[in-house]
């Protein structure tokens, strides 16, 4: 079907087209809820079964980086909403600025995530042959600030005594950690790609008060990815924290 202006030929009006696009994105987001939901269910069941190991695993995550990332992502949702508003009131330069800001914040998030993943790798916390939860924080690496460790050595040893299979269960925790944050990061990368496409369109002056549907529906997607992180952060980072 050919396009006249922004209206595709199979639609009768721009209004119908916009309504369809928005409904389509909402339904897609519902499928994403079900998709992540399976992971969240697996996490919940395993957390209930292996709370000791999950507690230790959670305490090895860097809460500063995690909380910081949460703030970064929430701010990116703000800039995204501002981009949508700017399009609706016709401030075309602001649309580009806010879209670029959203992309920048998203990139910061992904960069921090990469740093965290490297930390896990260094601390033998990637599931596989070298996995060992006793390696950290009980036996810190040179350069680790001992005061920053979330748990004392005694707590770790006590957990190991409580759960003889703690390394197997800890691997479950970290499988879920990498699986859930990895899937989330994949969605953010896709979101970054969508933002690049939008930025290109905004430079061409494509988004006006009459037509700004792409910005709106990418905004919906971005907010959804943000909400998934809002759930991930407490579930993964905040188990049994008492400092």
């Amino acid at each position, binding site marked *: *079907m050919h396009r006249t202006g922004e209206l595709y*030929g*199979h*639609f*009768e009006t721009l209004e*119908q087209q916009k*309504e*369809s696009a928005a*409904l*389509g994105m909402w*339904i*897609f987001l*519902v*499928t*994403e809820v*079900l*998709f*992540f*939901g*399976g*992971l969240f*269910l*697996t996490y919940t*069941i*395993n957390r209930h*079964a*292996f709370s000791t190991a999950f507690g230790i695993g959670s305490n090895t995550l860097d809460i500063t980086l995690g909380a910081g990332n949460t703030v970064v992502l929430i701010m990116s949702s703000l800039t995204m909403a501002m981009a949508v508003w700017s399009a609706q009131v016709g401030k075309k330069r602001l649309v580009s600025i806010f879209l670029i800001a959203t992309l920048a914040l998203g990139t910061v998030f992904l960069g921090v995530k990469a740093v965290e993943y490297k930390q896990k790798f260094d601390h033998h916390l990637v*599931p*596989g042959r070298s996995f060992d939860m006793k390696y950290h924080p009980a036996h810190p690496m040179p350069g680790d600030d001992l005061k920053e460790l979330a748990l004392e050595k005694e707590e770790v040893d006590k957990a190991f005594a409580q759960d003889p*299979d703690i390394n*197997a*269960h800890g*691997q*479950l925790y970290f*499988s879920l950690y990498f*699986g859930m944050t990895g899937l989330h990061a994949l969605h953010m990368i896709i979101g970054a790609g969508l933002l690049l496409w939008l930025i290109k369109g905004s430079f061409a002056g494509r988004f006006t008060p009459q037509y700004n549907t792409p910005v709106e529906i990418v905004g919906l997607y971005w907010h959804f990815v943000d909400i998934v992180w809002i759930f991930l952060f407490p579930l993964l980072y905040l188990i049994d924290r008492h400092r």
Partner: protein
Amino acid sequence: MSDTLTAPLPGHKMPHEDYLNATYGIRSWLLTTDHKRIALLYLGSVTFFFFIGGLFATMIRIHLLTPSGALVTPETYNKLFTMHGVAMVFFFLIPSIPAVLGNFLIPLMIGAKDLAFPKINLLSWYIYVVGGCFVLYSFGTGGLDTGWTFYTPLSSVYSNSAVTPAVIGIFINGFSSILTGLNFIVTIHTMRAPGMTWFRLPLFVWAHYATSLVMVLGTPVIAITLLLAGLERMFHLGFFNPALGGDPILFQHLFWFYSHPAVYIMILPAMGVISEIIPTFARKPIFGYSFIAGSSIAIAVIGFLVWAHHMFVTGESTYAALTFSLLSYLVAIPSAVKVFNWTSTLYKGSISWDTPMLYAFGFIGLFLIGGLTGLFLACLGLDIHIHDTYFVVAHFHYIMVGGAVMGYVGGIHFWWPKITGRLYPEALSRAAAVTLFVGFNLTFFPQFILGYLGMPRRYHTYPPEFQVLNVLSTAGASILALGYLLPMLYLTWSMRYGKVAGQNPWPATGLEWKTDSPPPTENFHVTPEVTWEAYDFQNRPDLGLLAGASPLAPAHGDD
């Protein structure tokens, strides 16, 4: 499509330009965004996978001719029934009616020019093809021996077959399903023609709306489940492996949470087809329209609540089992409502025995048996005895083949004139329908008896006293195969040599019948405005059915 080889009936000529001859060349097909062409692309690919699944079924039935197994090794036998199931369920039954008939008809039935997202529609076909390639690669490099249900830890740890490419393929294919469902839901909400209110929609559309709800909500769950199982296999993780602290029952819950609603994805569209055929060939409005529409939604909703009836023998608690058993009985009620309403439609109708009607009658009878035996299985005490026997196999084949496939073939026949502009030879098509019905019953009824007598499913051997029934079943399978082959031959023949059908050969009341056969690319030359109720044979003078009009010729073509 030239009409020079067949003398056209007076008044019936092929339209000058339609969606088939509007553009030429392979790129115009592979890069099309026309929902009608995409439907035909799907027709080709699902038929291909039907042959693949059928090939494995043939090998199974030949192998089971003798008690000790005539054809293959035990390990290969495991691969045969697994690959038969994977090919048929994921690549034939789930896409068939929605992707072929749904894609073709929904925009026509609601008076739209196309689906809401034509490019996503094409993408979903390509996704299907890519997923299919992964699965074919799996079949060709060692096959799959885990059962189509992929239970862990066999699938995720111990199996030596090509599990990983298969789960990747099915994962990818799931997105085809999701995008199709998404497209249908948005289209039905936002693209109905003026006057086409929700309660004037054809029941085919209601059925596909309900199906799309299931596709959109259920498929992501199996996607993540197979992803986790695949990751477990690739990276030795422990979600479902008891040796690493995982839980195989978790896999089963997650798997069946989709796979039970999946069976409603397979049957609801077929019920929608029947709801179109029966009023047409009884020349009467359907009985209880809003109840049939509502029952489609009810089946979709309740269908999400019954999954653990596949797990009665896994050690789930008595209370859970009771709940799922009760809900499984509940889900039968809306199905029964449909059967009663179809039957009531026939009362005082003017019934004609055209081929689509034969398939519809076949559907009602066979779905009745399949559905009732489902209730036998949902009964806890009885299930202990018949779970994992041929009783289950017979039950689901009655629904899937006796129900869904009959609905699919009947629908292909019913809308063939619209899709191709041609009629098929009626005598031959009726014979094929009867052949299919006879072959089907001969194949699968003995399996009820075998199952009740205790023959387990997925076994490559059986006690010698079961041989007669197995031989009957195999004999039936050969007749069933003939019943499938015949339509493939005469339908293909009819595309060139069949009688030209005209706009509305039956006649039927849907909007799709008010445009040319085959339709133009944009479906309607003028956007229609709907001022009549669905199936309203009384107030439709354009159908030529009123008293005083010329006596109706039989709807079919040349005999």
